């Protein structure tokens, strides 16, 4: 089908994205989640970590109970009398922050190593790629566990672990893409102009592989968030002072057997919705931006 009007790339992209209604819904959900996470202090009924605002008389309230302070525990409260809605919004902040920060850092690191590897070639390329193969042959949770067993706990430690888990994947992807780009004519042209290798890699090849890498990174944010939540649940992730969604779920575990499901249930739902929304948006981005790019198992 031929359309008469000419479109800017951005409009074409937006139209392509909007053709999938589920992806649009996911995008809207993701925007709402991001908004709620960023503005958590303004939208949540209480500051869940200000002890002065907590009332022990409100502890373990079922969803829908009125709090002593006047507002309603729509999602119940935990054993400290903390409003779960507020705790989830603050937790989302931490989970998203850790997920996005670690993914961006891993992306930068992985791309630098991958590009260097592609450009250097020879034994260095071989060594780096063997290392990448080695790391990717182990599940990410195992690598993260080993690292956390070594370096201990803390926000910085878990970010380091998440970076270490992710970099190899980006390095391999960007290397593959860079090797394809290297054979193209514009790189030959740049070389004829006697530009330095460094300039060719960063000014010519990098901008051309970046869109594909951003798509990969979007989906990886969801993995990072899920992994962080799992590690926090195991007690090896976030410290008690930065309660992410995983830690909230873990806290609720103790009350599960007495039937107080809401302390674990709702943070899990928030986690699930976030992960699904990111995955759907990422999948759609991939389809629109780069139909050739495939997921892990080629499906």
């Amino acid at each position, binding site marked *: 089908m031929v359309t008469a009007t000419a479109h800017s790339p951005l409009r074409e992209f937006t139209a392509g994205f909007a053709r999938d209604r589920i992806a649009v819904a996911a995008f809207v959900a993701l925007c709402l989640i991001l908004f709620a996470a960023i503005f958590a202090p303004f939208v949540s009924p209480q500051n869940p970590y200000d002890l002065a605002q907590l009332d022990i008389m409100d502890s373990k309230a079922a969803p829908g109970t009125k709090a002593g302070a006047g507002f309603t525990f729509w999602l119940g409260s935990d054993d400290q009398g903390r409003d779960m809605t507020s705790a989830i919004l603050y937790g989302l902040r931490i989970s998203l922050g850790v997920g996005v920060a670690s993914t961006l850092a891993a992306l930068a690191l992985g791309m630098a190593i991958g590009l260097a590897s592609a450009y250097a070639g020879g034994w260095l390329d071989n060594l780096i790629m063997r290392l990448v193969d080695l790391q990717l042959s182990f*599940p990410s*949770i195992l690598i993260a566990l080993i690292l956390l067993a*070594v370096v201990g706990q803390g926000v910085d430690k878990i970010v380091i672990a998440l970076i270490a888990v992710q970099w190899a994947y980006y390095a391999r992807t960007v290397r593959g893409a860079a090797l394809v780009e290297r054979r193209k004519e514009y790189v030959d042209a740049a070389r004829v102009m006697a530009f330095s290798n460094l300039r060719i890699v960063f000014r010519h090849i990098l901008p051309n592989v970046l869109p594909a890498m951003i798509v990969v990174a979007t989906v990886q944010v969801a993995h990072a968030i899920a992994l962080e939540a*799992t590690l926090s649940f*195991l007690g090896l992730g976030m410290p008690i002072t930065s309660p992410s969604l995983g830690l909230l779920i873990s806290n609720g575990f103790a009350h599960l057997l007495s039937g107080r499901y809401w302390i674990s249930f709702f943070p899990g739902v928030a986690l699930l919705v976030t992960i699904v929304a990111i995955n759907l948006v990422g999948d759609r981005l991939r389809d629109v931006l780069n139909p050739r790019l495939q997921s892990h198992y*080629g*499906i």
Partner: protein
Amino acid sequence: MLTFAFRRLLQSVVVLFIMSALVFAGVYAVGNPIDILINPQADQAEIAAATAALGLDLPLWRQYWNFIAGAFAGDLGKSFSANVPAVKLIFERMPATLELALAAMVIAIAFGIPLGLWAGLKPDSIPGRLIMAGSILGFSLPTFWVGLMLIMLFSVWLGWLPPTGRGQTVMVLGVPVSFFTWDGLQHLFMPALNLALFKLSLLIRLTRAGTREALSQDYVRLARAKGLSMARVVRVHVLKNIMIPIVTVTGLEFGSLIAFAIVTETIFAWPGMGKLLIDSINVLDRPVVVAYLLIIVLLFVVINFLVDLAYTALDPRVRISGRSA
């Protein structure tokens, strides 16, 4: 084939050595186990005696040397807290983990392949769409949270299944197994289902993608034109051809099942080696952590090696390209 196997084996040994050094050097950096093990009221002399008894006063390279020499003799040190050989502790726990992983794999295969076939044969039908939506959900659900919700549903609300622990076992060839008692199966069901969920989603997608690809091939159309029944075409022509990727992935994923069992075992208090690892990390029981990691690395190297061999045996194309390389 033999050269390939030998080269691959050599690679595996190198990987094992690198990993052992990394793991040892890494775990050595964790805190000082003496602080945790010894009575806080102990004086300097007692602390020094305990340090020497555990070999912690030697330089790092000597400790590694002792460790490697011991590893070849099957001795990876004594657990600081239980005071029994770490390897013995892990091997005691291993059957429980393997049983869990095996049960999860059986569930994933028994449901994943038929559901994937269905979704692949009828991709636009309502069940086909539902199966795919379910598998997308299965990919996104955080495993540990699903575990909690399973306990909530089956143990707290319905009261059908015990929430934690391993049930009654029967000794089979000197190994405790829970497959043969009702109590054992009851305890096994939830953790196995929890662990299986992710692999189930993966197998559904793999089978579906493979089936759809195979259906568009000429040999399937020929078989249909020949007048063969759809059932026979699926069984003989489609299934046989999609088995190669499925066998490979299933093999590779078995290792990751054992790794992910760490999470499931922690939720369901399943007495496997994953739970042992988490407990040991929490009390800084260094020899157990190192032994666990080494055993799991060994397991992975062996699995990857076997899968590579199986792949080469199953798919002649790999053999030919391997020979020319």
